[in-house]
């Protein structure tokens, strides 16, 4: 089609705008979008806090908060996508013959620009927030607090062993004193494992001859699970044990009962 032929067919810019932002389309998609966004905002606060296990450390608290905030960041995206999807779905053409042609909109500069900018900003928000949290979490900076208790964690097929070098105790359950920073030095004697004390919000791989370090401070009394999060062979599923966060007194008496000397 040459330039000259198409000139007559071209609608005026005003026509095109009116056609693109058709009132009923805008209203319907906005209503659906707002409803969906609202649902996701509410779900964001509920889903993870409902299903995630008891929070037993500041790290775990931060993780839970992250999940909630990310759901909120995502909520408007869901709103836009599902808003448009739902309204067109309801305006569908029924019948066995194909529908008449819709408007020949090939692009819309401002919309493309706006979309790119907004999604970039949302991604940027997620990045900035994530990096801030990362900076304060244990894996980035094993801060090695002066008074931190060291626990050597050893993964072997298919058992966890916890050694408290300063206390002269070794155990297959992980006992930790309340509100006392602890530094895990994690190793494996065979294949890769992944040390995961679930409620403490810590997870680091155990590699052979390459020690990894993680730090946390348990802040709630109670039992927690220790699992292996890296497929490590036959009995991977059963490579789990329990741990307990106890008061300092209880912890000391446990250490003594195990034949160690209390700190």
């Amino acid at each position: 089609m040459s330039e000259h032929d198409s000139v007559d067919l071209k609608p005026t810019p005003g026509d095109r705008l009116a056609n693109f932002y058709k009132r009923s389309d805008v209203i319907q998609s906005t209503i659906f979008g707002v409803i969906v966004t609202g649902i996701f905002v509410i779900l964001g606060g509920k889903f993870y806090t409902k299903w995630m296990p008891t929070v037993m450390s500041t790290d775990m608290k931060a993780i839970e908060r992250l999940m909630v905030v990310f759901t909120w960041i995502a909520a408007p995206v869901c709103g836009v996508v599902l808003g448009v999807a739902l309204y067109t779905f309801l305006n569908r053409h029924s019948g066995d013959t194909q529908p008449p042609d819709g408007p020949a909109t090939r692009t819309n500069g401002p919309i493309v620009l706006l979309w790119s900018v907004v999604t970039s900003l949302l991604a940027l928000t997620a990045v900035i927030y994530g990096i801030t949290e990362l900076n304060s979490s244990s894996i980035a900076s094993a801060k090695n607090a002066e008074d931190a208790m060291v626990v050597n964690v050893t993964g072997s097929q298919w058992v966890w062993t916890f050694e408290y070098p300063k206390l002269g105790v070794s155990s297959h359950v992980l006992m930790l004193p309340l509100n006392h920073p602890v530094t895990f030095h994690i190793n494996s004697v065979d294949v890769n494992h992944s040390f995961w004390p679930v409620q403490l919000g810590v997870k680091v791989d155990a590699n052979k001859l390459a020690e990894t370090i993680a730090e946390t401070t348990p802040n709630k009394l109670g039992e927690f699970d220790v699992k292996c999060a890296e497929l490590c062979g036959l009995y991977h599923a059963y490579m789990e044990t329990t741990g307990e966060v106890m008061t300092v007194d209880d912890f000391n008496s446990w250490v003594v009962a195990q034949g160690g000397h209390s700190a």
Partner: protein
Amino acid sequence: MTTLDQHVGTRPIPNPKKSLITKLNAGTGLIVGIIFALLTYRGLSTVLDISIYELNNRVLLATMFMWSIGFLAGIGAFIGPIRWLIGEDLTAEEQLYLAGDGQGIKRYFKYCTDHKVVGIQYLWGVIVLLAVGGAMAMMIRTDLANPGGHFITPSVYNSLVGLHGITMIIALIIVATGPFGNYIMPIMIGAADMAFPRLNALSWWVLFTAIPVLCSAWFLGGIPTGWTAYAPLSVQAGPGMNAFIAAIIIFAISTAVSGANITATVITMRAKGMTWNRVPIFVVGATLSVAMAIPAFPTFMLAMIMTAMDRSFLTGFFDANVGGTGWLYAHLFWIMGHPEVYVILLPGVAILMEIVPVFVRKPLFSYTSAIVGFAGIVGLSFLVWAHHMYMTGWMPMLNGPFMVTTEMISVPTGLIFLVILGTLWNGKPWLKVPMLAVYAFLWNMLVGGITGLYLSDVPADMYLHGSMYVTAHFHYTLMGAALTGAVAGLSYWYPKMTGHMLHERASYISFWLVQIGFQVLYLGMFIAGAEGQPRRVVDYAEQFATSNKISTMGAYTIGIGFIVLLWAVIHSWRHGKIAPMNPWGAKTLEWTVPYPVPLVNFDTPPVVTSDPYGYGRSAK
């Protein structure tokens, strides 16, 4: 003039009926392949003591590769190259014979160079792989239906998880580019065939030889590693691991051949007038996908070769005792592994982008954004691999940068959403099954993308990594988005590939069963993951019982849905409603050719004067 011409000219033209080529097919391939394998095994096992770990591994690997070579020799893959070696080529008659015209159903079991035959071969290959992988998934979910259930042993379970994974990954890598990339794409760009028809046949039959190799893992004790095959677990593993290694190496060769072929075809064989801004979006997506695979898969192959060396020659690439490291494996694996998920995703998305304009009767919204989105994904996908390694302890200081690149991918992915939503905007979609799949994609990709956001974030990943949450997330993207796209492509192009319409009611029923079952299955799995259930476990604590039961019910629903679809595909192949030439009223070139598609596709080469999205009334 030249001596060569005279030489060729004076030779009697062999009668193609008596040529060796006419006698070879998959049957002779099987026979020669098995003979090669048996001879290799018997020969080597007399020389090498197979009770020793590394010697046994050598014997098994050699046997598997010789099977593959033997099969290809037996089906006639090497006749052409051997002729070249002695300064000749196949005669015109032989080439025509290889194209398989007029040979009926037999040509599907031959080394056939016709891209349409290769497309159908890939289609059935994919269906078989998906059926096998799906059956494994059903067994996994049956085992996980109840805590403490001992439906299968841990050893069988681990093998199931690994083989389900790799079978589905292979199936999904070829699910769109195999059938549609081979059958439809050349017609879509107005070409008579692929750029390298013989390589096309080679890519399929090489892939075919990988399937029995992979299956043999079952009979060699299974694989304990999952499809990621992390070292040092893979080095410790039993003889079944050899099957995994050999299958991956053979598959990587197939994808390299196929990728080079598709890329070359799209670059050089487009119809007159099909400038780069007039190429149908499916062609762009499929080409970028295979172009991404070309640099990505060799690293997986390399990782497998190194694993094989560690196992067969006791080298120490991944052995910490002698200075190696498993991190090296993880790097090589994920440098393939992350581009690979987009290799799977792009063609599926591109199919849906091809479908939306047809069923909404509007031009594709912002073609440029689609290209930028695809290109952005391709570029970024090579810079994000270490987000799979946040928790390995490899280099925590790089977690931040990898988090940034990973979250940046949401921007080009957002453009893909924009293109589809923009095309839907102001439209009245015609909700045939392919169009329904677009809506399923929007929801599934949204969930998959957003859960990916949590996983890309280091602190959140610290909790979610290695849990069922990850499993649910990547099934949403790979199955919910990519496979949904491919199934949509099947019902969209089925009329052109078989001459019949796909049974409509059955495909509706299948669609809803699969999609509803899918939501149920993975909602349960998201919950299990949030609760803290690790993935790849044969058994779990009582607290995860409810969520797992929900998942298993969803899985069975999906299983039934796919059985319905399989019935529809088989039934409609012969008995479906006869399809008109252009049942959807689409404007791409494949709908301008009749069924059966002529050998060279077009009587006269088409000339393209616009892009294929000229739908729509003028806005007034």
